[in-house]
């Protein structure tokens, strides 16, 4: 199939893009990498009247600003593989990127597009929730920062208002040594995940001092677990209790069942992926 008709506007500055988005409201959408929007348009699942091409805007920085890593909305997925700041501070993030689609998709897809598209199985929204990132949203009337945990409202639904666009995502830098991992299962590598688990462990020597865990694909938005995080804190890297943590996380989630997998299968998968992911992260830290 082919898209329905629309008008194309190429923005050369952020102000111009925001003015166009304000003018079009619900009828307008930013066009970034096009790796989710164009398939949706080809299938006529989306029929925007106006596309505002934002690819020429200077929103592609990865840099430390204050105590956060600033990632511009137009940073393409493949950049994370070679960026030293991601490798140094966000190992779970780096592992997650390996699971996003295929090389040609990763070369063009963007951070802003991925979080705005808000696919329940997507890796970057999960990574944002895992790290308590802030989504920077701009509109003609100003800028606001939305915590990732409040940004994803439902499958493909975010807190963005008509006329607003994402300009960056800010990831708070970890305060001490951390280790992290991200694992998922899909039908084939690069396919949308059935479920994925990300974990970040802060540690002081052998002792786990802070823990974060997220699950993608099981619910309509990424979910954290305060119970699993509390369980892990105070344990050791040598014996993090990965199996028990998997049991707790799996019991706490009531997963969706769909064409890819039943709810019961997802529950089992969450338990096992959680075990493996924590064991992997703890193993890397103590190595």
């Amino acid at each position, binding site marked *: 199939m*082919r*898209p329905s008709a629309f008008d194309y506007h190429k923005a050369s500055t952020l102000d111009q893009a925001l003015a166009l988005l304000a003018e079009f409201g619900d009828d307008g959408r930013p066009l970034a990498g096009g790796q989710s929007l*164009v*398939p949706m348009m080809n299938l006529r699942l989306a029929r925007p009247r106006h596309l505002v091409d934002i690819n020429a805007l200077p929103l592609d920085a990865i840099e430390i600003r204050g105590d956060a890593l600033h990632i511009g909305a137009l940073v393409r997925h493949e950049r994370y593989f070679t960026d030293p700041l991601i490798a140094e501070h966000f190992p779970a993030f780096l592992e997650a990127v390996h699971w996003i689609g295929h090389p*040609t998709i990763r070369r063009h897809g963007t951070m802003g597009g991925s979080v705005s598209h808000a696919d329940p199985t997507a890796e970057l929204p999960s990574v944002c929730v895992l790290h308590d990132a802030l989504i920077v949203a701009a509109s003609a009337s100003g800028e606001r920062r939305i915590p990732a945990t409040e940004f994803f409202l439902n499958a493909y639904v975010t807190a963005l208002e008509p006329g607003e666009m994402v300009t960056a995502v800010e990831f708070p830098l970890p305060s001490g040594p951390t280790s992290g991992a991200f694992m998922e299962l899909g039908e084939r*590598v690069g396919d949308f995940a059935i479920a994925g688990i990300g974990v970040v462990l802060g540690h002081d020597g052998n002792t786990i001092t802070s823990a974060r865990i997220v699950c993608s694909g099981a619910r309509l938005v990424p979910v954290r677990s305060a119970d699993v995080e509390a369980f892990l804190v105070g344990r050791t890297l040598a014996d993090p209790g990965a199996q028990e943590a998997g049991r707790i996380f799996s019991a706490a989630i009531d997963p969706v069942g769909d064409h890819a997998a039943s709810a019961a299968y997802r529950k089992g998968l969450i338990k096992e992926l959680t075990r493996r992911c924590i064991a992997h992260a703890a193993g890397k830290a103590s190595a």
Partner: protein
Amino acid sequence: MTMTETTLTVNGQTRTLDVEPRRLLADVIRQEFDIAGVHIGCAHGACGCCTVHIDGTPRLSCLTFAVQCDGRDIKTVESLGGFDATHVLQLAFKSEHGLQCGYCTPGFLMTLVPYVEENVARGTLPSDEDIREAMSGNICRCTGYHGIVAAVRKAIGDQIGGGQ
């Protein structure tokens, strides 16, 4: 709906067209430039058949609007080794049985040519696992992929002199 004036260079041929914004680059190359090597398998990013180079970088032409490519240099499979298919990777596809019906082949070639070139420039012979990762966005219904992996290995191996 307004037409948008767009200048495209495809395989060295430059034309300025009035195009509807909704038209996919893949369709414009096939219909306006009469270049049939761009194949459309799925039109939603899943098969890789429509891969072309835009300013040297592989991109899915079914996920790209022609109006986005104003002033860009586009290359299709025809640019590699012409109708005789004499590019080193095309020759390797032939000798290693990397194709059967050929529908997916232009997409595989356009995805893998830069990968072969990068490895040759570095003098590295990648593992089969790495080759499979590089071609993971392309689907082939015929070959079972082994012949394609062998072709990539041969095209790189022959050029860096390490053999297989």
